[in-house]
């Protein structure tokens, strides 16, 4: 018995040394990311961007850039892949402390509060001006659902051109279009963050109609800037067979669009840089994935071979489970590191 205990302890010591050696080796092989510079002038001690609002010029300064208030001439829709919430807020006279967010961590277009105002750099202004004037960088079809958003990948400019410049036109009653909307044609700016409804595609009986909103006068829109179905007539482009077929294909290819929310606080200075995280991770996996199942492995092997304890099959099953546990821990280290 004493000899068996000694053997067990010796085996435990050997495996512990092996695990430690593997841990050191894994850490040596791991290359951490470069750390952010501590003396970033645009950020506070926590790594969050500092924002300054100038009430005289109605501008916001941050990230080394100046953002000027922008009043769009069309209804714009925030339709980016991501909404990045900055941690620091700005104080404005009209609304007090207000949050800022953008489509990335270094945007050309900032949103103050929730639709309280757009602030843009020169590049952002050029991008939005082009969008509002009908010169979008990309186009997509967007669904009409009130519950979720579906949209296509960017569609070809030629198809859009064929819709907007179509010659086969027809005058239709707007009241007939009320429940006939198939989808919207949206233009997007150069940052791919903001969209503008350029037109709507409608289906009446078996024909598809396209109405280009940008060429219509104010009388066709309600107070919120949405196309009005109250009364009157409008000239619509009738889609031909090829366009209808292309539309059907695009409509079927629509995919759900979800805006990913990212908080600056989660991304910056979370208290653990990658090297520290790697050390903690390897130690945690080493403890939970090696040191905890190791006694089970050793005991099960000893018991299976012991003359005094029966059922070697059961003990070997426990050996297999413990070994599998350690193998999974190794795989986890490989996958993550």
């Amino acid at each position, binding site marked *: 018995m004493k000899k068996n205990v000694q053997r067990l302890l010796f085996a435990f010591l050997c495996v512990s040394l092996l695990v430690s050696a593997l841990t050191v080796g894994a850490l040596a092989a791991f290359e951490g990311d470069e750390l952010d510079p501590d003396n970033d002038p645009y950020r506070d001690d926590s790594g969050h961007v500092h924002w300054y609002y100038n009430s005289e010029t109605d501008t916001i300064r941050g990230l080394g850039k100046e953002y000027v208030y922008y009043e769009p001439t069309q209804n714009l829709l925030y339709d980016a892949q991501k909404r990045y919430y900055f941690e620091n807020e700005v104080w404005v006279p009209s609304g007090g402390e207000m949050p800022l967010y953008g489509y990335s961590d270094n945007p050309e277009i900032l949103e103050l509060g929730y639709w309280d105002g757009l602030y843009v750099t020169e590049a952002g202004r050029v991008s939005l001006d082009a969008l509002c004037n009908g010169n979008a960088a990309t186009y997509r079809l967007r669904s009409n659902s009130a519950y979720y958003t579906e949209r296509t990948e960017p569609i070809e400019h030629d198809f859009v051109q064929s819709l907007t410049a179509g010659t086969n036109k027809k005058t239709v009653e707007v009241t007939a279009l009320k429940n006939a909307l198939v989808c919207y044609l949206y233009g997007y700016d150069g940052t791919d963050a903001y969209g503008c409804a350029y037109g709507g595609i409608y289906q009446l009986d078996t024909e598809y109609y396209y109405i280009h909103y940008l060429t219509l006068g104010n009388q066709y829109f309600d107070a919120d800037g949405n196309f009005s179905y109250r009364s009157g007539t409008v000239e619509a482009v009738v889609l031909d067979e090829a366009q209808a077929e292309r539309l059907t294909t695009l409509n079927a290819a629509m995919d759900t669009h979800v805006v990913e929310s990212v908080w600056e606080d989660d991304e910056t200075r979370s208290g653990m840089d990658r090297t520290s*995280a790697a050390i903690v*991770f390897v130690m945690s996996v080493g403890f939970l994935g090696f040191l905890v199942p190791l006694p089970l492995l050793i005991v099960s092997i000893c018991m299976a071979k012991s003359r005094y304890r*029966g059922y070697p099959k059961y003990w070997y099953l426990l050996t297999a*489970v413990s070994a599998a546990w350690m193998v*999974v821990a190794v795989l*986890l280290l490989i996958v*993550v590191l």
Partner: protein
Amino acid sequence: MLKKVLKYDMASIKRYWWLIAAAVLGISVVGSLVFRGVYLYFENVQNSPGQAEDIFLSLVMMAGMIFLFICVMAVFSSAFVTPVMTHLRYYRNFFTDEGYLTFTLPVSRKTLYLSKTVNSLLWTVAHALLLVVAFSITITLAPPAENGHVLNFVVWQGLGDALSAAWNAVGAWMLVYILEGILLLICSSAMSIGLIQLCITIGAVIAKKHKLLAAIGIYYAVNMATSTLYQIVFGCGSAFLVSSLAELLRGCTVSEQNAAASLILLAFILAVAALAMVLHFIALGLVERRLNLA
């Protein structure tokens, strides 16, 4: 021999389990229909004027809600009946006068013990499926359907949308997660059954009288000890693991993130399985060597 012993173990539970199953399904149907009836009655007459009618409607609605709540509680409370039956069978078959006959059978104690464990596990799974069916009946019958249809599939459509959204998010990894979820449920059930059987065994070995009371006391003590140990070993370790993992996976692809998550879940399943086996061995060792029915 395991199949034969298991057959009789299962037959002894089946006699009463079908009654419980019928009662559970019946309560689900009745409770759902009563709720629907009350809800429709409330909708049809809610515009009636007068304070007296309003108070009556509120009382009717409240009575319907309370009845449905009682039905739901009764259904979920039934989940305790099956384990009680199976563990009582274990106790009676091993540690009471029946044990004298049981251990004279030409079957090894290992097989007898394994049969009890498998029997408990199978009936636990059966009851879990029963609860799923009861829940399905409730969510299909209770909410009133449009156009006077009997069945309402709105909740099912919502579940379908949720699954579809989950599939869009993680893709084929969802199948892996579902499989691992099922394995985890089975291993957790096995561990729980093993722990209770171990406590009953220790109670029977230690106490000469009031073995069940001793078993219950031992169960609470062992449960507290294992919970504390679990918190120390896995709780602290996994807190560090999760926070460091979140940082390291930040720049990884979706596949790598899902692979890491599934591996962690698999490791957890193996840990629970190992613990279940250890409990099984300890209880089996006690039954083999320490049990004295004299």
